[in-house]
Protein backbone atom coordinates (compact mmCIF):
# COMPACT_ATOMS: atom_id res chain seq x y z
CA UNK A 1 0.00 0.00 0.00
CA UNK A 2 1.29 3.41 -0.92
CA UNK A 3 0.81 6.32 1.40
CA UNK A 4 0.72 9.79 -0.02
CA UNK A 5 2.70 12.50 1.63
CA UNK A 6 1.73 16.12 1.33
CA UNK A 7 4.29 18.81 2.02
CA UNK A 8 2.08 19.84 4.93
CA UNK A 9 3.05 16.62 6.72
CA UNK A 10 6.53 18.01 7.17
CA UNK A 11 5.22 21.25 8.66
CA UNK A 12 6.33 20.42 12.26
CA UNK A 13 9.89 19.90 11.05
CA UNK A 14 9.94 23.24 9.30
CA UNK A 15 8.48 24.97 12.33
CA UNK A 16 11.20 23.42 14.47
CA UNK A 17 13.86 24.49 11.98
CA UNK A 18 12.44 28.01 11.86
CA UNK A 19 12.39 28.27 15.65
CA UNK A 20 15.97 27.02 16.02
CA UNK A 21 17.33 29.36 13.35
CA UNK A 22 15.16 32.23 14.58
CA UNK A 23 16.43 31.96 18.14
CA UNK A 24 20.07 32.04 17.08
CA UNK A 25 19.66 34.90 14.62
CA UNK A 26 17.54 36.99 17.02
CA UNK A 27 19.91 36.60 19.94
CA UNK A 28 22.92 37.42 17.79
CA UNK A 29 21.28 40.53 16.34
CA UNK A 30 19.84 41.71 19.63
CA UNK A 31 23.06 41.37 21.62
CA UNK A 32 24.92 43.29 18.94
CA UNK A 33 22.41 46.13 18.76
CA UNK A 34 21.55 46.52 22.46
CA UNK A 35 25.06 46.39 23.93
CA UNK A 36 27.00 49.69 24.01
CA UNK A 37 30.11 49.85 21.82
CA UNK A 38 33.14 51.96 22.59
CA UNK A 39 36.11 50.57 20.72
CA UNK A 40 39.51 52.11 20.92
CA UNK A 41 43.02 50.79 20.54
CA UNK A 42 43.78 51.75 24.11
CA UNK A 43 40.88 49.69 25.39
CA UNK A 44 42.00 46.53 23.58
CA UNK A 45 45.41 46.54 25.21
CA UNK A 46 46.23 44.84 28.48
CA UNK A 47 45.42 47.09 31.43
CA UNK A 48 48.25 48.10 33.78
CA UNK A 49 49.47 44.59 34.45
CA UNK A 50 49.84 41.54 32.19
CA UNK A 51 51.89 41.09 29.07
CA UNK A 52 50.90 42.74 25.79
CA UNK A 53 48.96 40.48 23.41
CA UNK A 54 51.16 38.95 20.75
CA UNK A 55 50.54 36.90 17.61
CA UNK A 56 47.55 34.81 16.72
CA UNK A 57 45.27 33.16 19.22
CA UNK A 58 45.19 30.03 17.07
CA UNK A 59 48.57 28.68 18.11
CA UNK A 60 49.12 24.95 18.33
CA UNK A 61 48.29 23.68 21.81
CA UNK A 62 50.30 21.26 23.85
CA UNK A 63 50.78 17.78 22.51
CA UNK A 64 49.46 16.43 25.81
CA UNK A 65 45.98 17.63 24.91
CA UNK A 66 46.26 16.02 21.54
CA UNK A 67 47.18 12.61 22.98
CA UNK A 68 44.40 12.76 25.52
CA UNK A 69 41.91 13.76 22.85
CA UNK A 70 42.99 10.81 20.71
CA UNK A 71 42.73 8.41 23.64
CA UNK A 72 39.31 9.77 24.43
CA UNK A 73 38.14 9.09 20.88
CA UNK A 74 39.45 5.53 21.05
CA UNK A 75 38.05 4.56 24.42
CA UNK A 76 34.82 6.45 23.86
CA UNK A 77 33.91 4.61 20.70
CA UNK A 78 34.46 1.16 22.21
CA UNK A 79 31.28 1.73 24.21
CA UNK A 80 29.21 1.06 21.09
CA UNK A 81 30.01 -2.63 21.44
CA UNK A 82 28.39 -2.59 24.86
CA UNK A 83 25.03 -1.31 23.68
CA UNK A 84 24.14 -4.43 21.69
CA UNK A 85 25.35 -6.54 24.60
CA UNK A 86 23.24 -4.55 27.07
CA UNK A 87 20.16 -4.90 24.86
CA UNK A 88 20.61 -8.66 24.62
CA UNK A 89 21.99 -9.08 28.11
CA UNK A 90 19.60 -11.81 29.22
CA UNK A 91 19.60 -13.88 26.04
CA UNK A 92 23.39 -13.84 25.75
CA UNK A 93 23.72 -15.15 29.30
CA UNK A 94 26.98 -16.09 30.92
CA UNK A 95 28.76 -16.70 27.63
CA UNK A 96 28.09 -13.13 26.59
CA UNK A 97 29.20 -11.89 30.00
CA UNK A 98 32.51 -13.72 29.76
CA UNK A 99 33.07 -12.41 26.26
CA UNK A 100 32.38 -8.89 27.42
CA UNK A 101 34.77 -9.37 30.35
CA UNK A 102 37.42 -10.46 27.86
CA UNK A 103 36.75 -7.39 25.75
CA UNK A 104 36.99 -5.11 28.77
CA UNK A 105 40.14 -6.93 29.86
CA UNK A 106 41.79 -6.16 26.53
CA UNK A 107 40.69 -2.54 26.77
CA UNK A 108 42.11 -2.36 30.31
CA UNK A 109 45.38 -3.84 29.08
CA UNK A 110 45.50 -0.97 26.60
CA UNK A 111 44.66 1.50 29.34
CA UNK A 112 47.40 0.12 31.59
CA UNK A 113 49.83 0.41 28.68
CA UNK A 114 48.85 4.06 28.25
CA UNK A 115 49.49 4.74 31.94
CA UNK A 116 52.83 2.96 31.93
CA UNK A 117 53.86 4.97 28.87
CA UNK A 118 53.23 8.07 30.95
CA UNK A 119 50.77 9.62 28.52
CA UNK A 120 48.44 10.74 31.30
CA UNK A 121 51.17 12.37 33.40
CA UNK A 122 50.38 16.05 33.46
CA UNK A 123 53.70 17.62 34.37
Amino acid at each position, binding site marked *: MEKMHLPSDFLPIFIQLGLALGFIITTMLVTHSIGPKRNSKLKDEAFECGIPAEGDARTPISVKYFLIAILFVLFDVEVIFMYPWAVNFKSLGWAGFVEMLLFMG*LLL*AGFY*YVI*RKGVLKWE
Partner: protein
Amino acid sequence: MLPIVLLSVFGIVVLFLGFSKSKNILLPATLLFLLVTLIANFVDWNHQYLYFNDMLWGNNASMVFSGIVLLSAFFVVALTRGFEQEGEAAQPAEYYGIMLFSLVGAIMMISYENLIILFVGVEILSVSIYILTGSDKRNLRSNEAALKYFLMGAFATGIMLFGMALMYGATGSFVISDISEIIGTRAWNEQSQLLYAGLLMLLVGLLFKVSAAPFHFWTPDVYDGAPTIFTAYMSTIVKTAGFAALYRLLAGSLASLQDYWFATLATITVLTLLAGNVTAVYQTSFKRMLAYSSISHAGYLLIALTSLTAKSQSSILFYSLAYSLSTVSAFGVLILVSQQQASNNYDAFNGLAKKNPFLAFVLAVSMLSLAGIPLTAGFMGKLFVFTDAAQKGTIWLLVVAILASAIGIYYYFRVLIAAYFKEGDLATIRIAPFYKVVLIIVTTLTIVLGLFPDLVLQLV
Protein backbone atom coordinates in the same frame (compact mmCIF):
# COMPACT_ATOMS: atom_id res chain seq x y z
CA MET B 1 41.32 -19.33 15.00
CA LEU B 2 44.33 -20.26 17.11
CA PRO B 3 46.87 -18.10 15.22
CA ILE B 4 44.60 -15.06 15.49
CA VAL B 5 44.19 -15.45 19.26
CA LEU B 6 47.88 -16.21 19.75
CA LEU B 7 49.06 -13.27 17.67
CA SER B 8 46.78 -10.85 19.52
CA VAL B 9 47.99 -12.05 22.92
CA PHE B 10 51.64 -12.12 21.82
CA GLY B 11 51.30 -8.60 20.44
CA ILE B 12 50.15 -7.31 23.83
CA VAL B 13 52.90 -9.29 25.57
CA VAL B 14 55.54 -7.73 23.31
CA LEU B 15 54.17 -4.25 24.04
CA PHE B 16 54.58 -4.87 27.76
CA LEU B 17 58.00 -6.48 27.32
CA GLY B 18 59.06 -3.07 26.03
CA PHE B 19 58.82 -1.75 29.59
CA SER B 20 61.50 -4.14 30.80
CA LYS B 21 65.05 -2.90 31.11
CA SER B 22 66.72 -5.15 28.59
CA LYS B 23 65.61 -4.37 25.07
CA ASN B 24 67.63 -7.27 23.71
CA ILE B 25 64.96 -9.76 24.68
CA LEU B 26 62.44 -8.26 22.21
CA LEU B 27 63.76 -9.68 18.96
CA PRO B 28 64.18 -13.29 20.15
CA ALA B 29 60.80 -13.11 21.89
CA THR B 30 59.07 -11.89 18.73
CA LEU B 31 60.76 -14.56 16.64
CA LEU B 32 59.74 -17.22 19.15
CA PHE B 33 56.15 -15.97 19.13
CA LEU B 34 56.07 -16.05 15.34
CA LEU B 35 57.44 -19.58 15.33
CA VAL B 36 54.83 -20.74 17.84
CA THR B 37 52.09 -19.14 15.76
CA LEU B 38 53.46 -20.71 12.60
CA ILE B 39 53.17 -24.15 14.20
CA ALA B 40 49.77 -23.40 15.74
CA ASN B 41 48.58 -22.28 12.32
CA PHE B 42 48.57 -25.88 11.11
CA VAL B 43 46.67 -27.57 13.97
CA ASP B 44 43.53 -27.80 11.84
CA TRP B 45 45.41 -29.49 9.02
CA ASN B 46 43.11 -31.56 6.75
CA HIS B 47 40.01 -30.12 8.40
CA GLN B 48 37.69 -27.50 7.08
CA TYR B 49 36.89 -25.17 9.91
CA LEU B 50 34.32 -22.49 10.63
CA TYR B 51 34.95 -20.27 13.63
CA PHE B 52 33.46 -17.25 15.39
CA ASN B 53 29.80 -17.84 14.48
CA ASP B 54 30.74 -18.94 10.96
CA MET B 55 32.54 -15.70 10.23
CA LEU B 56 35.90 -17.33 9.62
CA TRP B 57 36.42 -20.19 7.22
CA GLY B 58 39.52 -22.15 6.44
CA ASN B 59 40.97 -25.20 4.80
CA ASN B 60 44.44 -26.42 3.90
CA ALA B 61 44.89 -23.76 1.25
CA SER B 62 44.09 -20.87 3.56
CA MET B 63 46.39 -22.38 6.18
CA VAL B 64 49.22 -22.48 3.68
CA PHE B 65 48.51 -18.86 2.72
CA SER B 66 48.66 -17.90 6.41
CA GLY B 67 51.83 -19.95 6.66
CA ILE B 68 53.43 -17.96 3.83
CA VAL B 69 52.49 -14.69 5.52
CA LEU B 70 53.84 -15.83 8.88
CA LEU B 71 57.01 -17.19 7.31
CA SER B 72 57.76 -13.96 5.44
CA ALA B 73 57.01 -12.02 8.62
CA PHE B 74 59.47 -14.27 10.45
CA PHE B 75 62.19 -13.58 7.90
CA VAL B 76 61.58 -9.84 7.85
CA VAL B 77 61.53 -9.62 11.65
CA ALA B 78 64.76 -11.61 11.71
CA LEU B 79 66.32 -8.91 9.51
CA THR B 80 65.27 -6.08 11.84
CA ARG B 81 68.33 -5.92 14.05
CA GLY B 82 69.21 -2.30 14.22
CA PHE B 83 66.04 -0.79 15.63
CA GLU B 84 67.91 -0.56 18.90
CA GLN B 85 70.67 1.58 17.45
CA GLU B 86 68.40 4.33 16.22
CA GLY B 87 68.66 6.26 19.49
CA GLU B 88 65.93 7.38 21.81
CA ALA B 89 63.35 7.76 19.05
CA ALA B 90 63.48 4.03 18.38
CA GLN B 91 60.63 2.11 19.96
CA PRO B 92 61.29 -1.51 19.07
CA ALA B 93 58.58 -2.97 21.29
CA GLU B 94 55.89 -0.93 19.56
CA TYR B 95 57.08 -1.85 16.09
CA TYR B 96 57.29 -5.55 16.87
CA GLY B 97 53.89 -5.38 18.54
CA ILE B 98 52.34 -3.62 15.56
CA MET B 99 53.90 -6.17 13.21
CA LEU B 100 52.29 -8.99 15.18
CA PHE B 101 48.92 -7.19 15.22
CA SER B 102 49.09 -6.56 11.49
CA LEU B 103 49.48 -10.30 10.92
CA VAL B 104 46.12 -10.81 12.63
CA GLY B 105 44.63 -8.62 9.93
CA ALA B 106 46.43 -10.55 7.20
CA ILE B 107 45.13 -13.89 8.48
CA MET B 108 41.61 -12.48 8.72
CA MET B 109 41.86 -11.33 5.10
CA ILE B 110 42.98 -14.80 4.05
CA SER B 111 40.25 -16.81 5.76
CA TYR B 112 37.18 -14.61 5.91
CA GLU B 113 33.71 -15.98 5.36
CA ASN B 114 31.86 -12.79 6.21
CA LEU B 115 32.58 -9.47 4.53
CA ILE B 116 32.73 -7.83 7.98
CA ILE B 117 35.84 -9.89 8.72
CA LEU B 118 37.33 -8.91 5.37
CA PHE B 119 36.81 -5.23 6.18
CA VAL B 120 38.18 -5.50 9.72
CA GLY B 121 41.16 -7.54 8.48
CA VAL B 122 41.98 -5.05 5.71
CA GLU B 123 41.82 -2.21 8.19
CA ILE B 124 43.94 -3.89 10.87
CA LEU B 125 46.61 -4.59 8.26
CA SER B 126 46.44 -1.15 6.63
CA VAL B 127 46.37 0.91 9.81
CA SER B 128 49.36 -1.01 11.18
CA ILE B 129 51.25 -0.36 7.99
CA TYR B 130 50.42 3.36 8.00
CA ILE B 131 52.18 3.48 11.36
CA LEU B 132 55.16 1.40 10.23
CA THR B 133 55.55 3.56 7.10
CA GLY B 134 55.83 6.70 9.21
CA SER B 135 58.02 5.11 11.86
CA ASP B 136 61.07 7.16 10.90
CA LYS B 137 59.58 10.17 12.63
CA ARG B 138 62.24 12.79 11.94
CA ASN B 139 62.58 11.87 8.27
CA LEU B 140 60.39 13.98 6.00
CA ARG B 141 60.29 11.34 3.29
CA SER B 142 58.95 8.78 5.73
CA ASN B 143 56.37 11.30 7.01
CA GLU B 144 55.25 12.10 3.52
CA ALA B 145 54.96 8.44 2.59
CA ALA B 146 52.86 7.77 5.69
CA LEU B 147 50.47 10.64 5.00
CA LYS B 148 50.09 9.75 1.33
CA TYR B 149 49.48 6.10 2.13
CA PHE B 150 47.08 6.98 4.89
CA LEU B 151 44.95 9.43 2.90
CA MET B 152 44.78 7.25 -0.21
CA GLY B 153 44.28 4.08 1.82
CA ALA B 154 41.39 5.59 3.76
CA PHE B 155 39.90 6.80 0.48
CA ALA B 156 40.14 3.30 -0.99
CA THR B 157 38.62 1.84 2.16
CA GLY B 158 35.65 4.16 1.76
CA ILE B 159 35.11 2.99 -1.81
CA MET B 160 35.45 -0.65 -0.77
CA LEU B 161 32.91 -0.17 2.00
CA PHE B 162 30.40 1.46 -0.32
CA GLY B 163 30.78 -1.54 -2.58
CA MET B 164 30.14 -3.91 0.31
CA ALA B 165 27.05 -1.93 1.30
CA LEU B 166 25.67 -2.09 -2.24
CA MET B 167 26.33 -5.82 -2.43
CA TYR B 168 24.51 -6.21 0.84
CA GLY B 169 21.63 -4.24 -0.62
CA ALA B 170 21.54 -6.49 -3.67
CA THR B 171 21.88 -9.86 -1.94
CA GLY B 172 20.87 -9.26 1.66
CA SER B 173 23.87 -11.01 3.13
CA PHE B 174 27.52 -10.48 3.97
CA VAL B 175 28.31 -14.19 4.00
CA ILE B 176 30.39 -15.33 1.03
CA SER B 177 28.62 -18.66 0.52
CA ASP B 178 25.15 -17.06 0.84
CA ILE B 179 26.02 -14.39 -1.68
CA SER B 180 27.25 -17.08 -4.05
CA GLU B 181 23.99 -18.99 -3.62
CA ILE B 182 21.81 -15.94 -4.19
CA ILE B 183 23.75 -14.88 -7.26
CA GLY B 184 23.69 -18.41 -8.59
CA THR B 185 19.90 -18.53 -8.70
CA ARG B 186 19.65 -15.68 -11.17
CA ALA B 187 21.01 -15.13 -14.66
CA TRP B 188 23.47 -12.30 -15.14
CA ASN B 189 20.89 -9.95 -16.62
CA GLU B 190 18.41 -10.57 -13.83
CA GLN B 191 20.78 -9.46 -11.09
CA SER B 192 20.11 -6.30 -9.20
CA GLN B 193 22.00 -3.36 -10.69
CA LEU B 194 23.31 -2.62 -7.20
CA LEU B 195 25.30 -5.85 -7.33
CA TYR B 196 27.38 -4.77 -10.32
CA ALA B 197 28.09 -1.33 -8.92
CA GLY B 198 28.96 -2.89 -5.57
CA LEU B 199 31.19 -5.57 -7.05
CA LEU B 200 33.10 -2.97 -9.05
CA MET B 201 33.70 -0.72 -6.04
CA LEU B 202 34.69 -3.63 -3.80
CA LEU B 203 37.19 -4.76 -6.43
CA VAL B 204 38.60 -1.24 -6.75
CA GLY B 205 39.18 -1.11 -3.01
CA LEU B 206 40.95 -4.45 -2.87
CA LEU B 207 42.95 -3.85 -6.05
CA PHE B 208 44.18 -0.62 -4.49
CA LYS B 209 45.58 -2.58 -1.56
CA VAL B 210 47.53 -4.93 -3.85
CA SER B 211 48.62 -1.92 -5.97
CA ALA B 212 47.21 -2.91 -9.34
CA ALA B 213 47.19 -0.24 -12.06
CA PRO B 214 45.46 2.23 -12.34
CA PHE B 215 45.32 2.30 -8.56
CA HIS B 216 49.08 1.97 -8.10
CA PHE B 217 50.21 5.60 -7.85
CA TRP B 218 50.82 5.43 -4.13
CA THR B 219 53.10 2.40 -4.34
CA PRO B 220 56.43 3.87 -5.51
CA ASP B 221 56.22 6.86 -3.17
CA VAL B 222 55.25 4.81 -0.15
CA TYR B 223 57.77 2.04 -0.79
CA ASP B 224 60.48 4.59 -1.40
CA GLY B 225 59.74 6.71 1.64
CA ALA B 226 59.19 3.97 4.20
CA PRO B 227 62.16 2.55 6.13
CA THR B 228 63.55 -0.26 3.96
CA ILE B 229 62.79 -3.02 6.42
CA PHE B 230 59.11 -2.06 6.48
CA THR B 231 59.05 -1.78 2.71
CA ALA B 232 60.10 -5.42 2.65
CA TYR B 233 57.41 -6.19 5.19
CA MET B 234 54.54 -4.56 3.34
CA SER B 235 55.54 -5.64 -0.14
CA THR B 236 55.44 -9.30 0.88
CA ILE B 237 52.61 -9.52 3.40
CA VAL B 238 50.07 -7.09 1.97
CA LYS B 239 50.44 -8.62 -1.45
CA THR B 240 49.99 -12.22 -0.31
CA ALA B 241 47.04 -11.42 1.95
CA GLY B 242 45.45 -9.14 -0.64
CA PHE B 243 45.55 -11.74 -3.37
CA ALA B 244 44.26 -14.46 -1.05
CA ALA B 245 41.34 -12.14 -0.21
CA LEU B 246 40.67 -11.36 -3.87
CA TYR B 247 40.77 -15.03 -4.78
CA ARG B 248 38.39 -15.91 -1.97
CA LEU B 249 35.97 -13.20 -3.09
CA LEU B 250 36.04 -14.04 -6.79
CA ALA B 251 36.15 -17.83 -6.51
CA GLY B 252 33.99 -18.11 -3.42
CA SER B 253 31.09 -15.87 -4.26
CA LEU B 254 31.34 -14.42 -7.73
CA ALA B 255 32.56 -17.31 -9.88
CA SER B 256 29.21 -17.52 -11.65
CA LEU B 257 29.61 -13.93 -12.80
CA GLN B 258 33.03 -14.50 -14.36
CA ASP B 259 31.79 -13.43 -17.78
CA TYR B 260 30.91 -10.10 -16.26
CA TRP B 261 34.11 -9.23 -14.41
CA PHE B 262 36.50 -10.99 -16.74
CA ALA B 263 36.88 -8.07 -19.17
CA THR B 264 37.39 -5.56 -16.36
CA LEU B 265 40.01 -7.61 -14.58
CA ALA B 266 41.79 -8.55 -17.80
CA THR B 267 42.11 -4.87 -18.72
CA ILE B 268 43.46 -4.08 -15.25
CA THR B 269 45.92 -6.97 -15.57
CA VAL B 270 47.33 -5.65 -18.85
CA LEU B 271 47.54 -2.11 -17.46
CA THR B 272 49.32 -3.36 -14.34
CA LEU B 273 51.83 -5.42 -16.30
CA LEU B 274 52.66 -2.53 -18.61
CA ALA B 275 52.69 0.22 -15.98
CA GLY B 276 54.88 -1.80 -13.61
CA ASN B 277 57.41 -3.09 -16.08
CA VAL B 278 57.78 -0.10 -18.37
CA THR B 279 58.14 2.44 -15.56
CA ALA B 280 60.59 0.23 -13.68
CA VAL B 281 63.02 0.58 -16.59
CA TYR B 282 63.41 4.33 -16.02
CA GLN B 283 64.28 4.16 -12.33
CA THR B 284 67.71 5.02 -10.99
CA SER B 285 66.97 3.91 -7.44
CA PHE B 286 67.03 0.20 -6.71
CA LYS B 287 64.44 0.60 -3.96
CA ARG B 288 62.06 2.43 -6.27
CA MET B 289 62.64 -0.19 -8.96
CA LEU B 290 61.59 -2.86 -6.46
CA ALA B 291 58.40 -0.87 -5.87
CA TYR B 292 57.56 -0.93 -9.58
CA SER B 293 58.58 -4.55 -9.72
CA SER B 294 56.04 -5.28 -6.99
CA ILE B 295 53.40 -3.65 -9.19
CA SER B 296 54.41 -5.84 -12.11
CA HIS B 297 54.27 -8.96 -9.92
CA ALA B 298 50.77 -7.95 -8.90
CA GLY B 299 50.09 -8.08 -12.64
CA TYR B 300 51.33 -11.67 -12.95
CA LEU B 301 49.26 -12.70 -9.94
CA LEU B 302 46.24 -11.01 -11.51
CA ILE B 303 46.65 -13.26 -14.57
CA ALA B 304 46.00 -16.31 -12.42
CA LEU B 305 43.10 -14.53 -10.75
CA THR B 306 41.56 -13.44 -14.04
CA SER B 307 41.75 -16.92 -15.52
CA LEU B 308 40.24 -18.52 -12.41
CA THR B 309 40.74 -22.14 -13.37
CA ALA B 310 40.79 -25.04 -10.92
CA LYS B 311 44.52 -24.57 -10.43
CA SER B 312 44.49 -20.81 -9.95
CA GLN B 313 44.65 -21.03 -6.20
CA SER B 314 47.80 -23.15 -6.13
CA SER B 315 49.39 -20.89 -8.78
CA ILE B 316 48.67 -17.78 -6.73
CA LEU B 317 49.95 -19.53 -3.65
CA PHE B 318 53.18 -20.68 -5.22
CA TYR B 319 53.77 -17.36 -6.94
CA SER B 320 53.29 -15.33 -3.79
CA LEU B 321 55.64 -17.64 -1.90
CA ALA B 322 58.30 -17.33 -4.59
CA TYR B 323 57.82 -13.57 -4.78
CA SER B 324 57.96 -13.16 -0.99
CA LEU B 325 61.19 -15.16 -0.67
CA SER B 326 63.00 -13.28 -3.43
CA THR B 327 61.75 -9.92 -2.20
CA VAL B 328 62.92 -10.57 1.35
CA SER B 329 66.42 -11.44 0.19
CA ALA B 330 66.56 -8.49 -2.24
CA PHE B 331 65.63 -6.07 0.53
CA GLY B 332 67.98 -7.83 2.93
CA VAL B 333 70.92 -7.11 0.63
CA LEU B 334 69.66 -3.58 -0.03
CA ILE B 335 69.57 -2.80 3.70
CA LEU B 336 73.21 -3.82 4.14
CA VAL B 337 74.44 -2.03 1.03
CA SER B 338 72.51 1.18 1.69
CA GLN B 339 73.81 1.30 5.26
CA GLN B 340 77.32 1.21 3.83
CA GLN B 341 76.78 3.59 0.93
CA ALA B 342 73.98 5.84 2.25
CA SER B 343 72.24 5.46 -1.09
CA ASN B 344 69.58 3.27 -2.64
CA ASN B 345 70.72 3.80 -6.22
CA TYR B 346 72.06 1.21 -8.63
CA ASP B 347 75.55 2.77 -8.36
CA ALA B 348 75.64 1.80 -4.69
CA PHE B 349 75.99 -1.82 -5.80
CA ASN B 350 79.02 -1.15 -8.04
CA GLY B 351 81.68 -3.75 -7.40
CA LEU B 352 79.67 -5.61 -4.80
CA ALA B 353 80.89 -9.02 -5.98
CA LYS B 354 84.58 -8.25 -5.48
CA LYS B 355 84.66 -8.10 -1.70
CA ASN B 356 81.21 -9.46 -0.85
CA PRO B 357 80.71 -12.52 -3.05
CA PHE B 358 78.09 -13.95 -0.69
CA LEU B 359 75.85 -10.87 -0.83
CA ALA B 360 76.28 -10.67 -4.59
CA PHE B 361 75.22 -14.32 -4.93
CA VAL B 362 72.13 -13.78 -2.76
CA LEU B 363 71.25 -10.74 -4.84
CA ALA B 364 71.81 -12.69 -8.06
CA VAL B 365 69.52 -15.56 -7.05
CA SER B 366 66.83 -13.16 -5.92
CA MET B 367 66.99 -11.10 -9.12
CA LEU B 368 66.99 -14.23 -11.30
CA SER B 369 63.95 -15.48 -9.42
CA LEU B 370 62.12 -12.16 -9.75
CA ALA B 371 62.94 -12.07 -13.46
CA GLY B 372 61.72 -15.65 -13.87
CA ILE B 373 64.88 -17.42 -15.03
CA PRO B 374 64.72 -21.25 -14.93
CA LEU B 375 65.99 -23.17 -11.87
CA THR B 376 64.51 -20.56 -9.53
CA ALA B 377 61.15 -20.44 -7.76
CA GLY B 378 60.15 -17.36 -9.72
CA PHE B 379 60.35 -19.28 -12.98
CA MET B 380 58.07 -22.06 -11.75
CA GLY B 381 55.64 -19.44 -10.41
CA LYS B 382 55.46 -17.70 -13.78
CA LEU B 383 55.10 -21.07 -15.51
CA PHE B 384 52.06 -22.01 -13.41
CA VAL B 385 50.46 -18.61 -13.88
CA PHE B 386 50.99 -18.68 -17.64
CA THR B 387 49.61 -22.22 -17.80
CA ASP B 388 46.42 -20.96 -16.15
CA ALA B 389 46.04 -18.25 -18.76
CA ALA B 390 46.67 -20.77 -21.55
CA GLN B 391 44.01 -23.08 -20.12
CA LYS B 392 41.49 -20.27 -20.02
CA GLY B 393 42.43 -19.58 -23.65
CA THR B 394 43.41 -15.96 -23.27
CA ILE B 395 46.42 -16.00 -25.55
CA TRP B 396 46.58 -12.22 -25.93
CA LEU B 397 46.98 -11.87 -22.18
CA LEU B 398 49.77 -14.43 -22.30
CA VAL B 399 51.57 -12.53 -25.06
CA VAL B 400 51.46 -9.30 -23.05
CA ALA B 401 52.73 -11.11 -19.97
CA ILE B 402 55.66 -12.70 -21.79
CA LEU B 403 56.63 -9.37 -23.36
CA ALA B 404 56.42 -7.80 -19.91
CA SER B 405 58.71 -10.38 -18.37
CA ALA B 406 61.17 -9.81 -21.21
CA ILE B 407 61.26 -6.13 -20.19
CA GLY B 408 61.68 -7.30 -16.60
CA ILE B 409 64.92 -9.10 -17.39
CA TYR B 410 66.45 -5.78 -18.45
CA TYR B 411 65.95 -3.91 -15.21
CA TYR B 412 66.60 -6.86 -12.91
CA PHE B 413 69.92 -7.50 -14.64
CA ARG B 414 70.98 -3.87 -14.36
CA VAL B 415 71.75 -4.28 -10.67
CA LEU B 416 73.56 -7.55 -11.34
CA ILE B 417 75.72 -5.87 -13.96
CA ALA B 418 76.51 -3.17 -11.42
CA ALA B 419 77.38 -5.78 -8.82
CA TYR B 420 79.51 -8.04 -10.98
CA PHE B 421 80.98 -6.04 -13.85
CA LYS B 422 81.35 -2.47 -12.67
CA GLU B 423 84.25 -1.01 -10.77
CA GLY B 424 83.44 0.16 -7.28
CA ASP B 425 85.07 0.83 -3.96
CA LEU B 426 82.62 -1.10 -1.79
CA ALA B 427 84.42 -2.37 1.32
CA THR B 428 83.69 -5.72 2.91
CA ILE B 429 80.33 -5.53 4.66
CA ARG B 430 80.15 -7.18 8.04
CA ILE B 431 77.09 -9.43 8.25
CA ALA B 432 75.74 -10.56 11.60
CA PRO B 433 75.61 -14.37 11.79
CA PHE B 434 71.85 -14.48 12.26
CA TYR B 435 71.29 -12.14 9.32
CA LYS B 436 73.49 -14.41 7.23
CA VAL B 437 71.53 -17.50 8.26
CA VAL B 438 68.25 -15.88 7.17
CA LEU B 439 69.72 -14.90 3.80
CA ILE B 440 71.07 -18.43 3.32
CA ILE B 441 67.70 -20.03 4.16
CA VAL B 442 65.78 -17.71 1.87
CA THR B 443 68.18 -18.22 -1.03
CA THR B 444 68.23 -21.99 -0.57
CA LEU B 445 64.43 -22.09 -0.47
CA THR B 446 64.28 -20.06 -3.68
CA ILE B 447 66.50 -22.57 -5.48
CA VAL B 448 64.93 -25.68 -3.94
CA LEU B 449 61.41 -24.55 -4.82
CA GLY B 450 62.62 -23.82 -8.33
CA LEU B 451 63.80 -27.43 -8.65
CA PHE B 452 61.03 -29.17 -6.69
CA PRO B 453 57.88 -27.02 -6.79
CA ASP B 454 55.81 -30.05 -5.75
CA LEU B 455 57.05 -29.64 -2.18
CA VAL B 456 54.54 -26.84 -1.77
CA LEU B 457 52.01 -27.70 -4.42
CA GLN B 458 51.14 -31.10 -2.99
CA LEU B 459 50.06 -29.38 0.22
CA VAL B 460 46.92 -27.93 -1.34
